[in-house]
């Protein structure tokens, strides 16, 4: 505000920030689409219902994958369901997402993917060719990620009870010795990197639904991020604080979660964030912030300041990471908040997504 922040306004703001920093409660009377959007409602469901119900230290860490000690080693385990609509879109299919999504959750824990399980829920009447096409996509994605599918399950539900097909994959990975990652490890001064331009996946899905009569060349960014993580760990291993793949809720959700978990502030420089002009244009028309749009092959890396340049070089050396960029840094104040220095020269808050502008994105 140009006018000075009065004491009273400051007091109100402090109360709000204290409330925000607390663990969210789940107080809703029914599930709405917003609970699946990866924004604040999802957070309330996870923090307010699921984590307390299954209370254990591994889950409490709220990482993309849980870590367990096994026979003297550390393994990571994760699971993910895919309900994307349509099941085929520019740059990928539901099968690609099902493999890459789970592989990426493992990779974000600093773990090399070892094996996947695959669970299919199919709608009565689904053409066999559609299924064959998806099975081929799953096989190809798994081969490309170098991870075998070692078990599976198939269920069929009556027509209308699901939309074509849903997929659930569970993954097991071996945590790399070079990784010391934690959402709570961020320190003031740390640099914030993204592995490429953001918002491509969500925009591709949105346009593929054909509801907007907009044409573009945007393709989903779905890819396995393990090669990128492998290279990063090799380049700057101990200086890497935390990794997140920016799926539902986009980069903004990831940054807010990390800022809260580490009790740091973040400042993001809008002009440094790589966004494809078509994505920027579509988001502009639809009134959506690209920072809230889902990605399926982009990671956010927080690194110690002295390692930022090497980390950026490492990211850029891997296929798919050519457009990696440093977009901001961690600060001390205001704690738990993410601020955006706008390209125009002002400053604003960048909060998590509220509501669900884009259901069934993955």
């Amino acid at each position, binding site marked *: *505000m*140009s*006018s*000075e*922040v009065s004491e*009273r*306004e*400051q007091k*109100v*703001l402090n*109360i*709000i920030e204290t*409330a925000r920093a607390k663990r969210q409660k789940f*107080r809703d*009377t*029914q*599930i*709405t*689409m*917003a609970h699946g959007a990866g*924004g*604040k*409602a999802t957070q*309330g469901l996870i923090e307010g219902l699921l984590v307390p119900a299954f209370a254990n230290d591994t889950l409490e860490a709220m990482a993309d994958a849980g870590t367990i000690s096994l026979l003297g080693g550390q393994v990571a385990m994760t699971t993910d369901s895919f309900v994307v609509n349509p099941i085929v879109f520019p740059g990928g299919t539901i099968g690609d997402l099902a493999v890459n999504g789970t592989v990426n959750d493992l990779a974000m824990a600093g773990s090399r993917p070892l094996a996947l399980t695959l669970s299919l829920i199919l709608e009565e009447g689904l053409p066999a060719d559609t299924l064959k096409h998806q099975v081929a996509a799953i096989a190809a994605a798994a081969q490309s990620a170098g991870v075998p599918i070692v078990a599976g399950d198939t269920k069929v539900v009556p027509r209308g009870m699901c939309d074509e097909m849903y997929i659930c994959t569970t993954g097991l990975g071996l945590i790399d010795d070079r990784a010391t990652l934690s959402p709570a490890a961020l320190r*003031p001064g740390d640099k914030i990197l993204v592995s490429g331009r953001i918002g491509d996946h969500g925009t591709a899905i949105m346009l593929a639904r054909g*509801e*907007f009569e907009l044409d573009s060349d945007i393709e989903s960014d779905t890819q396995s991020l393990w090669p990128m993580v492998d290279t990063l760990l090799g380049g700057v291993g101990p200086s890497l604080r935390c990794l997140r793949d920016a799926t539902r809720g986009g980069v903004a959700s990831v940054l807010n979660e990390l800022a809260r978990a580490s009790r740091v*502030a973040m*400042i993001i420089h809008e002009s440094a964030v790589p966004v494809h*002009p078509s994505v*920027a*244009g579509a988001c*502009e028309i*639809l*009134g959506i912030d690209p920072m809230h749009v889902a990605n399926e092959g982009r990671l956010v890396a927080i690194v110690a300041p002295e390692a930022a340049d090497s980390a950026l070089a490492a990211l850029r050396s891997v296929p798919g990471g050519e457009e990696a960029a440093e977009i901001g840094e961690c*600060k*001390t*104040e*205001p704690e738990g*908040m993410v*601020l955006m220095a*706008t*390209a*125009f*020269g*002002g*400053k*604003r*808050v960048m*909060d998590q997504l*509220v*509501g669900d*502008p884009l259901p069934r994105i993955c």
Partner: protein
Amino acid sequence: MKHVDEFRDPALGRVLAGEILGLVEAGRHYKFMEVCGGHTHSIYKYGIDDLLPANVELVHGPGCPVCVIPMGRVDDAIALAHEDNVIFTCFGDMLRVPGSEGSLLDAKAEGADIRMVYSPLDALRIAKSNPERDVIFMAIGFETTAPSTALTLRRAKSEGVKNFFCMCNHVTIVPPLRALLDSPDLRLDGFIGPGHVSTVVGVRPFEFIPREYGKPIAVAGFEPLDVLHAIHMILTQLKEGRCEVENQYARVVPYEGNPRALEVMAEVFELRPHFEWRGMGFISQSGLKLSKAYADLDAELRYAVPGVRVADPKACQCGEVLKGVIKPWECKVFGSGCTPERPIGTCMVSSEGACAAYYNYGRFAREREVV
């Protein structure tokens, strides 16, 4: 994005900001109202306030289409959505506005067939592909969106679509502005005029503001340079002792507006004797309903709606926020009882609402310099 990025040029912004600094008198406090929610959104989204001198204060006005919808109308919408055989369509923001017992989003989860659309034409398309169902479009907005609703209704009528209906909540901008200017609560030095509305109605309808109330106004576009430029124009008027309507947005806004849009609106709509505004009460001749020629497409005639006036929740101060009497953070429930994820009032729902804009974008202590 060509033709947009030019109006977001930070270097030009700094030049304008410097000139604005030269126009303000030390010791004088300037209070300008941006009428339109689109401006409120831009101001917070780009951090435009950061470029203004400390004694230029921007006050948020009533021009947010979702914000002005009273609770009783949300209840009416939910009642329509629950009718058998109805597909209810509306804009996304409307889904989360609380009625007296839940929102449209809740009604959807309870089984009502409610679909989000980006334009009335999408709703008409849904009607055509579901001929056995009644499709209702909840129309909201000022003169900006009214022409597209009108054109859609005209098309539905001419194509003989029998299952498309409109729940009309369109409102007009001048009556609430007059109500604001007549209110003793608010002392303003000038207005940033609504650019999108003016593309339709033109600049002439705002002439009463300088003439009858002695306040300068600059109709403005929505990019950050537009807003700064409009502030520059108003300050220049004040400095030179002028008081008139100026058109900053001349690249889009013709003085006489868009005659074809006004024509189709006149064909499809007629003024309601009065319409209730959230927190502002009934304002006469401020709302539109379907004209007699289009009565067959009026959802409120096709179905009985409760039409009950519901008092706003006691704690909610949306009315004062919409009138610019209080700042969002001054509301008793701002950020505590009322948040974007669990809103009490409309201003916290729409991206154009002052409370949502302040909460989502503006809420941090600028005093505490980021270290």
